[in-house]
Structure formats: structure tokens, C-alpha cells
């Protein structure tokens, strides 16, 4: 009698537990998990925080809109502090929860995760950063530097400068100094600039600044001595405002300074205020867009409900927009994957990779998403994982960023061969056979 009771109790408990397990599994099955690697602490926090706010807010907006064809998004943030080893830990932690794509948000972490992604079958999405040669999808099957790389940035800046001078041929004999963060991030544009220097005969001066970039006295002494015609600033975080202050102290004209897109947001210039007036920065497609529809949607559907991630007045600023746009491109990749593998289903990393590779964001689609005027259409392919190479220059007028140029397109004639040769070198080192046509269909 006693034994029967025990058996019965065990059976009931087991049944309850298994049903609880299966329902929770079902509940999970309807959610698409996205890891969020962010840095809200450490030397780069002032720039990392708005990006993460935009990224998370956009995910919340998609959920408020009902998810991707009904599939809600789940996410979890992991703090990296811009440290590569910690980023790898975060990646491994969130990977085990079923990550469908990852955006590392640091060049160092991108390099490390690039080596792991093919084995884990998780796409590495790097919107506007990462390794430039990974635009070649035949070698870098899992990397997606969608919307632009540092080579695009460098090329766009050069074109803007050339326009100011009156043509690329006028660059001959000019002196251009690259003040860069001494890390893979800062070194990325050098091959392209060297290539261009050879083509047009300008003199390229390389001035590294040790991380994190607060010590720049020696660098700007060199600038004062050699008096370059233009200074390109490849900084991040505290390095940018320091550079602007040093330029002010040196008396170098801010109008002749061009920053990369990570050196052209509000936190970089706010502390310098009027001293940064006239400073230019390239921006990958978007700039500060407080008037765009997506910002209004976020304010209405997320912030108005008290679910906003950061301060309300930062919504629509440059880095915030970059976070939102990064999230949007990843999510559209998932949507594209659903178009092929079944709407309303949760996609695996491999399926999302297909979606990212067949992204076709036309103008009507962008308008519907609320990105009208923020960016131009983008379409990726098996070979081209970048999709578009458009950029604009914006200028700080002392109070806000304003566009000061038309759309600029990086010269494919220069970038493509460079991408191909660098990617081929990587493929040779890693013994990767470039993907053939049939692999592109998968």
C-alpha cells in the first residue's frame, strides 16, 4: 500500500515536471534569441552606452510591433568593457542560449569571434566596423560588415576632401596625417589610404596614439611641425575629445579635421563644445536623425510606456541611431531568412546567415520600417556581404551634427581589388577554399 502511494506520487510529480518542461520549451521555441554584447563601463562607455540603448530599444520596438511575423525577440545583455577576453566569454555564454547572430561591437572581439563563428555556425554582424576584407563573402562566409567598412569610410573621407580641393588630381603633393588609435581598429584604414596615396600622389603621414588615447601631446607636436593639409582622426571614446582639445591647443583648424564614424558622435564633441565647431566626420549612411519615423515610433511605443533603455533626450542621436540601425539590419536578416524557411518560425544561425546574405532592403521597405531618409537601400549577396558603400559627411556646428555633403559612394574600383587580394591572403593562410556557386544557394 505504501509502495503504491510512493509510485503514484513519483508518477504525478514526473508528469507535472515533464509538462512544465515541455510548455517552457514551447514558450522558448517561439522566441528568437539575440545576444547583446555591449560596454557600459570602462574607457569607452560614453560611446558604447548610447549604441547599446539604441540596439535594445529597437528590439523592444520590434516586439511592440508584434515581433518578426509573430516571433518575439528575446535578448540578453552582456557587459564586455571593450575587453577582448571578456567579449569572448560573453559570446560563449550567450551562444549557449541559442544565439542566431552576434554583433561584437569591438574590432578586437570581431577578430577573435571571426575565428570561432564558422565552427559555431553563428553569423557575425558588424555594422560599419570589423575587418574590412570580410566584405568578401566567398571567403568570410559568416561575417557581415553590412553598410560599410573602414575602407569605405577612408575612401569617402578622401572623396569629400577631394571635392573640397576640386578633384582627386588636386590631392597631388598634399599632406594628409592619419591620427589613429593604435589597435587593429585604428590600423584598418591604412592599406586603403596607402593605395590611394600611390594613385594620387599625396603624402600620407601615420601618427599612432596609444590606447586609450588620452596622451596625444607628442602626436600633435608632430602635426604642428609638419602642418598637414588634412588630419583624419581614427579615434574612439576619450581619444576623440582629447584630439579635438589638442587641435584647439595646437591651433590646427578643426575644419580640416575629418573623423571616422566612430569619431563623429555627440559624446566626442560635447565636452569640447565650441572648440569642436567645424569638425567633420564621415557617417555611414545615417547621422543624427531625431526627426525620423523610427525615432518617433521608439518614443511612442517604447519610451512613452516607460520601457525606454536610456535617457529620452538621447534618442535619435548619432550612436543611438547606429545601435538602432545595427539591430534593424540584423533583424531584417532574420526576416529574410523567415521568407525562405518559413514565416513565424524561429531561425537557426545558419538560416539567419542565408537571410543576411540575401538582404534586399528596398526604399519602400525602408520607408515601412521608418528608416526613410536615414539610409539608402541595401542589398547583399553571396559575394558581397557589405551591400552598399554609401556615406555622408556631417559637421558639428557647436550644438549639433548637420550634414555638410551629399551622398558619397566609395570607389569600387579601388576597394574591390583590395578586398579580394586581402581576403585571398586570409584564405591562403587559413586554407579556406572560396565558396563556389552552389554553396551560395544554401
Amino acid at each position, binding site marked *: 500500500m505504501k509502495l503504491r502511494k510512493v509510485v503514484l506520487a513519483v508518477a504525478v510529480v514526473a508528469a507535472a515536471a515533464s509538462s512544465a518542461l515541455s510548455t517552457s520549451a514551447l514558450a522558448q521555441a517561439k522566441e528568437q534569441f539575440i545576444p547583446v554584447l555591449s560596454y557600459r563601463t570602462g574607457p569607452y562607455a560614453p560611446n558604447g552606452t548610447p549604441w547599446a540603448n539604441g540596439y535594445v530599444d529597437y528590439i523592444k520596438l520590434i516586439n511592440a510591433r508584434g515581433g518578426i511575423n509573430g516571433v518575439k525577440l528575446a535578448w540578453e545583455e552582456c*557587459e564586455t568593457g571593450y575587453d577582448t577576453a571578456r567579449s*569572448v566569454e560573453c559570446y560563449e555564454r550567450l*551562444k549557449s542560449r541559442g544565439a542566431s547572430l552576434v554583433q561584437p561591437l569591438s574590432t*578586437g572581439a570581431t*577578430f577573435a569571434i571571426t*575565428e570561432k563563428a564558422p565552427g559555431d555556425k553563428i553569423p557575425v554582424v558588424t555594422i560599419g566596423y570589423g575587418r574590412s576584407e570580410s566584405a568578401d563573402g566567398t571567403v568570410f562566409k559568416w561575417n557581415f560588415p553590412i553598410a560599410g567598412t573602414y575602407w569605405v569610410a577612408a575612401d569617402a573621407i578622401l572623396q569629400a576632401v577631394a571635392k573640397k580641393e576640386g578633384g582627386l588630381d588636386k590631392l597631388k603633393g598634399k599632406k594628409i596625417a592619419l591620427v589613429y588609435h593604435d589597435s587593429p581598429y585604428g*590600423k584598418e584604414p591604412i592599406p586603403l589610404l596607402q593605395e590611394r596615396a600611390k594613385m594620387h600622389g599625396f603624402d600620407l603621414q601615420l601618427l*599612432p596614439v596609444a590606447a586609450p588615447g588620452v596622451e596625444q601631446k607628442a602626436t600633435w607636436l608632430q602635426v604642428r611641425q609638419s602642418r598637414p593639409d588634412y588630419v583624419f582622426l581614427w579615434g574612439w571614446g576619450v581619444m576623440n575629445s582629447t584630439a579635438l582639445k589638442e587641435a584647439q591647443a595646437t591651433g590646427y583648424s578643426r575644419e580640416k579635421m575629418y573623423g571616422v564614424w566612430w569619431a563623429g558622435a555627440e559624446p566626442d564633441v560635447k565636452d569640447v563644445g565650441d572648440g569642436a565647431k567645424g569638425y567633420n566626420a564621415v557617417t555611414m549612411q545615417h547621422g543624427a536623425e531625431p526627426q525620423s519615423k523610427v525615432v518617433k515610433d521608439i518614443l511612442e511605443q517604447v519610451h512613452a510606456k516607460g520601457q525606454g533603455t536610456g535617457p529620452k533626450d538621447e534618442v535619435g542621436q548619432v550612436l543611438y541611431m547606429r545601435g538602432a540601425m545595427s539591430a534593424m539590419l540584423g533583424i531584417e536578416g532574420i526576416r529574410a531568412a523567415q521568407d525562405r524557411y518559413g514565416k513565424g518560425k524561429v531561425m537557426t544561425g545558419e538560416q539567419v546567415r542565408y537571410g543576411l546574405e540575401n538582404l534586399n532592403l528596398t526604399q519602400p521597405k525602408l520607408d515601412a520600417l521608418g528608416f526613410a531618409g536615414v539610409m539608402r537601400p541595401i542589398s547583399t549577396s553571396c559575394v558581397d556581404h557589405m551591400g552598399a558603400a554609401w556615406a555622408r559627411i556631417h559637421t558639428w556646428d557647436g550644438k549639433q551634427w548637420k550634414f555638410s555633403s551629399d551622398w558619397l559612394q566609395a570607389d569600387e574600383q579601388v576597394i574591390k581589388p583590395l578586398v579580394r587580394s586581402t581576403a585571398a591572403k586570409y584564405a591562403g593562410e587559413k586554407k579556406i577554399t572560396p565558396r563556389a556557386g552552389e554553396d551560395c544557394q544554401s
Partner: protein
Amino acid sequence: MLYRENGQFKTSYRADQQIFPIVQDRWAMLAILLIGFVLVPAFASDYMFRAILVPFLIMAMAAVGVNILVGYCGQISLGSGAFMAVGAYGAFNFFARIPGLPLIPALILGGLCATVFGILFGLPSLRVRGLYLAVATLAAQFFADWMFLRIKWFTMDTPSGSVSVSNLQVLGWPIESATSKYLFCLALLVLVALAAKNLVRSAIGREWMAIRDMDVAAAVIGIRPMYAKLSAFAVSSFIIGVAGALWAFVYLGAWEPAAFSVEMSFRLLFMVIIGGLGSIMGSFFGAAFIVVLPIFLNQFLPWAAGLVGFVISTAGVSHAEQMIFGALIVWFLIVEPHGLAKLWSTGKQKLRLWPFPH
């Protein structure tokens, strides 16, 4: 009670000189090895391996190396990160430039590069000591940072200065899966720890300790300070170099000089101080404390806060993690300035007398 040695008689020098003279310790060690090699691979998750166990093992190896130099020989060094970097880039250059070079010889060659570098930057130790030497070894750190950022030859002229390795294998056994990485690191660590333990018990280890305790007295009794100090630098930087190569090859896969910044040197020094200076086992405790505790706090805090219905932001967790971590370091050093290893041996001593303390 647990550690009662009654009846354990040593009748030969061999028995008296064992690493673990007490039977219980030997069994415990066997059990730990068994758990490490058999049980853990069977049960740990992918995340456990890749993000916690592998970095812990590699850092423990580096801490053993630092402990030989700082703990046993008393030469305070802030250049450990540089030795790791030299090991990593040395191994990388051999691995990438010599086609078909197997992994283990590449690691050893990387370690030898670090040895040469270590001896070179150990030379100031013949003239200066203590804090002055710490500052002198800091030069090694800055020199390595500069060298691997600037001299393109070391990074095979990659445009970004970031290098990577792949297709790792040992005797046809690919080091790709989480388990294989773990077992490979564990096997190397066991070898290194055993060698280090025996080394510090040998004549040369006693010379190091004599130098540490009072170098003038050591010189008077016939120990050559130059030989003792430089050999400590050599052995320690070899081990640190191999650990650096493992950190780069096995853990990161692709790395830049920032992976071995001065912060790494500090972390390594903290590991041996918190773990216990002059104790091989302390290196393990220290590595666990520095590597695992922040990650544990980072995951435990949101969960603990969730229990009481509290939601902390990511930045909040990160700040809380750093504060608690810092407070714990201070607390540990006040409670037990000789490190976790001393705490452990005190506990062991208490167990010997338990339940009748006097």
C-alpha cells in the same frame, strides 16, 4: 581527524621526500586528477569549457610561472604580460612561418623566445630589487607593447596588426572542440605544475628561496645570485610564455597586442599575491579567484537580485561586480595576508587536530 597521520611511518628517504607525504593528500590529488580528466569532460557544458575552464587553466599556468619568479625568488615583476606576449607572438611566428610545424614544438619555441626575453629583462635584477625592480620590469611590458604594435615583421605584415591561428592539432588530434581544448590545456598544466613543484623542492628552488629571504646571506653561503636570479627569470618566463601562447592560440584564436597589456601583468601579480606567494597550489587558487569570480559575480548578481524581485541594469551589475571584487580582495588580504593557500593550509592543520584543538 581527517588528516590523522597515525601509523604513516616513513622508512626511506624516498617516502619522506614525496610531494604529498600524507596518504590522504595523495588520494585527494588522485581524485582531483580523476575528476579533471574524466568527470569534468563528461559533464561540463560547452560554455563551461570555453569561457571558464580553459581561461582558468591557462591563467593558472601563467600564475605558476609568476609565482616562481615573485613568490619563490622574490623578484617582483610587472612584466609578466610582456612575457606572455613574447610567448604568443614567438609561437605564432614559428607556427606560421615554418610550414608543417606541429603545435607543441611551436609552443615550446614560443616559450624559449620568452625565456630569452625574460633573461634579458631580468638583468636589472642583478643590481636593483624590490619596487625598483618592479619598475624596471615594467620596461619589458612597454617594450613588448611597442614591439608588437610597431615592428610589422612580428605580425606577418597584417594590415590591422591582429593575427590569428587555426587548424590546431596535436598528433592528428584536432584541438577544435571545447573538450579537446580543455584536455590539452589540462594536460599541459599538470605537466608544468609537476615540473614546477619538483623544481622548487630541488637545490635550485632552495637557492631561489635563499635569495628571496636574504640575498646577502645567500651569497655568503655560496649561492651565486646571478645564476639564481637569472635562472628564476628563465624558468618563470618560459612557463609564462607557454601560457601566453596557449592564451592566444587556444583561448582567443585571434589577438592583438592589447590582449597582453599592462593590465594582464597586474592581474597576474594579483593572482600570486591573493593565491599565496611561494606556493604552487596558491597559483591555482589565485587564478580561480581572479578569472572565475568576476564571471561568477556577473551571472550570480542578476540572479540573486531577481530572487528578491529586483532588476539590475547591465552597467549596474558590472559596477557592482567590480566593487564586490575589490572589497573581497581587501578583505582576503586583511584576513589572510599570506593568501588563499595559507588559508587552506591553516584549515588543513585544524583538521589534523580536530576535534581536539589545543
